[in-house]
């Protein structure tokens, strides 16, 4: 029997029991839908996170004080005051790091900001004027602070949207003085809301020159983080090496295991986050696969019932000249058709759901969530569902093919 007629026979077999066929493929539909959804949403989440990380510029390198902890008890590695002013000077030296375009020491802290009778808990972020460029910040009112403010340790601040809302309401804060940890700061600019879904949220922050923050607010001599940008992306690896060498020299470190700083490129961070989201996605795919497996068992169950029910038909076909192979292909193809149809419906359903969710997340959270059609999921889903048809349809089909024609014909 040729493939065309096997297909025709199988289709007739399936359409004869339409509602049963539909119920049977439900398990496969649900399994494939779940897998498609997980892969699509996982891809979307990954794209969102990576987009934000890379939004900082892939030519950005961060120096973090302390080394990467070697184990859970190695807490001291996390907190360190190892990055000092002399390090900045060493790094600024063109002879040490020729690729350096700009360098920005930063400090963080917390405190209360007050204006009139209003008070608000804020994050204090001390940096240089490069902050606006690196994070692509554009004050909606006023200006960003300048390099003069940094060198002169001026008491100026740029405040986030939430800070504006809590301290000033609808009033214009520009030129007003707010008290941060009891010291007066002049508001020189305000930032538009960056939204809740963003990785870097400036809404509750007061930004100011790091010099002012270090000396007058936090009382520290070290930096929490140093951000360096190179001229272009390709210089990042050599710049990282130069930075590491320069800092080891400056800190008199000869054994790399004793580094008291960590040099992290945006690419490292992106890779690490990418690995985490992928691992999470594939874990969820594994969970969703259980649904697919259960669906496969459902297929086998129904195919076995179908084979028993159609014993006489099998006997007749054999009496009329069908070989074992003909019967095997007929039932195997029925199973594969069932699962493949289920797979296609699942792919369409999963992709549609993922699309709707992507729109919902974009609108609801105000983030730029991209819908990603999961090609890997679609190909995988179709392949896996056909495979399930072959595996779980194989046993019933073999049972059908094995039947002796006369025993099948005698079956009541």
């Amino acid at each position, binding site marked *: 029997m040729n493939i065309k007629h096997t297909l025709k026979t199988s289709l*007739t077999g399936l359409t004869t029991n339409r509602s049963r066929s539909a119920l049977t493929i439900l398990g496969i539909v649900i399994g494939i839908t779940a897998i498609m959804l997980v892969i699509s949403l996982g891809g979307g989440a990954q794209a969102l996170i990576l987009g934000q990380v890379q939004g900082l510029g892939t030519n950005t390198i961060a120096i973090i004080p302390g080394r990467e902890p070697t184990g859970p008890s190695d807490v001291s590695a996390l907190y360190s005051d190892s990055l000092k002013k002399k390090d900045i000077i060493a790094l600024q030296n063109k002879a040490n790091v020729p690729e350096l375009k700009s360098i920005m020491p930063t400090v963080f802290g917390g405190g209360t900001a007050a204006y009139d009778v209003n008070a608000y808990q804020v994050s204090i972020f001390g940096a240089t004027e490069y902050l606006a460029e690196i994070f692509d910040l554009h004050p909606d009112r006023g200006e960003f602070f300048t390099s003069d403010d940094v060198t002169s340790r001026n008491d100026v601040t740029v405040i986030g949207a939430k800070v504006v809302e809590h301290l000033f309401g609808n009033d214009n804060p520009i030129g007003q003085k707010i008290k941060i940890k009891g010291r007066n700061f002049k508001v020189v600019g305000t930032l538009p809301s960056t939204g809740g879904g963003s990785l870097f949220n400036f809404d509750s922050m007061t930004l100011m020159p790091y010099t002012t923050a270090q000396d007058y607010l936090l009382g520290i001599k070290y930096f929490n983080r140093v951000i360096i940008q190179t001229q272009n992306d390709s210089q990042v690896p050599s710049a990282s090496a130069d930075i590491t060498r320069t800092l080891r020299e400056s800190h008199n470190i000869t054994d790399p295991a004793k580094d008291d700083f960590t040099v992290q490129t945006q690419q490292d961070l992106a890779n690490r986050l990418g690995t985490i989201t992928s691992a999470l996605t594939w874990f969820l795919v594994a969970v969703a696969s259980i649904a697919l497996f259960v669906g496969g068992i459902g297929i086998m169950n129904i195919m076995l019932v179908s084979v028993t029910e159609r014993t006489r038909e099998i006997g007749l076909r*054999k*009496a*009329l000249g*069908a070989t074992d*192979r003909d019967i095997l292909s007929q039932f195997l193809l029925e199973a594969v058709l069932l699962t493949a149809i289920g797979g296609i419906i699942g792919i369409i359903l999963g992709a549609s759901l993922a699309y709707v969710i992507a729109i919902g997340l974009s609108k609801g959270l105000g983030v730029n969530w991209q819908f990603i059609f999961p090609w890997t999921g679609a190909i995988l889903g179709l392949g896996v569902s056909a495979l399930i048809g072959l595996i779980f349809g194989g046993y019933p089909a073999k049972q059908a093919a094995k039947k*002796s*024609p006369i025993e099948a*014909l005698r079956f009541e």
Partner: protein
Amino acid sequence: MNIIEVKNLKKAYHDGKTETVALSGVTFSVRKGEFLAIMGPSGSGKSTLLHLLGLLDVPTSGHYSFNSKTVTSYTRDELASIRNKEIGFVFQSFNLLARTTVLENVKLPLVYSSVPEEEWDSRARKAVESVGLEHRIGHYQAELSGGERQRVAIARALVTDPEVIFADEPTGNLDSKSGKKVMSIIQRLNEKEGKTVVLITHETSTAEHAERIIHLMDGEIDSDIKVKNRLTSDDEYVK
């Protein structure tokens, strides 16, 4: 020339420890173009014999030569091919496919044959015409009477132009009028088209369409006689 030759054919069924002997060694032959009826009470082994002759089942021992081929040594696939090309079956319970038209039912054996697809339709139509059902060609099984269903089954048996037609109680589920019609078609196939027919029945009136009757009793041949006053086929049915 003998189309069927069996020597000492035995069939026993094993059910756990007990062995049931259905055929305890039968020997006979059927001439090409002959019309043979096999009779016997239930349990005499006549159905078993027909299934062995029709290659639907394999004997426990003995020799069977069908159309000059020693089929006792053939594989399942080879037997399927002979059933398809050289044998036509007519069953007591018709065994038509439900929700399938007359034409599609008649085509079914061709699907498993090497006959080119272009010929399927004309062959099936010719077979349907030869049983006088051309006006029912697009009808479904449920829309047909018992007699019409059995005629469709005969058309299906004819479509591959086989040498032998095996009929297992073909009138068993029919009223006497439809039964007569079916028998006259079968007899006509034997007389006009030279088909060898092997039929089993327990009705003497049906058996008397044949040239020869073998009586089975307890798995053995009890008698093998020529029919003296053979019934004639009635060509009137086509109208």
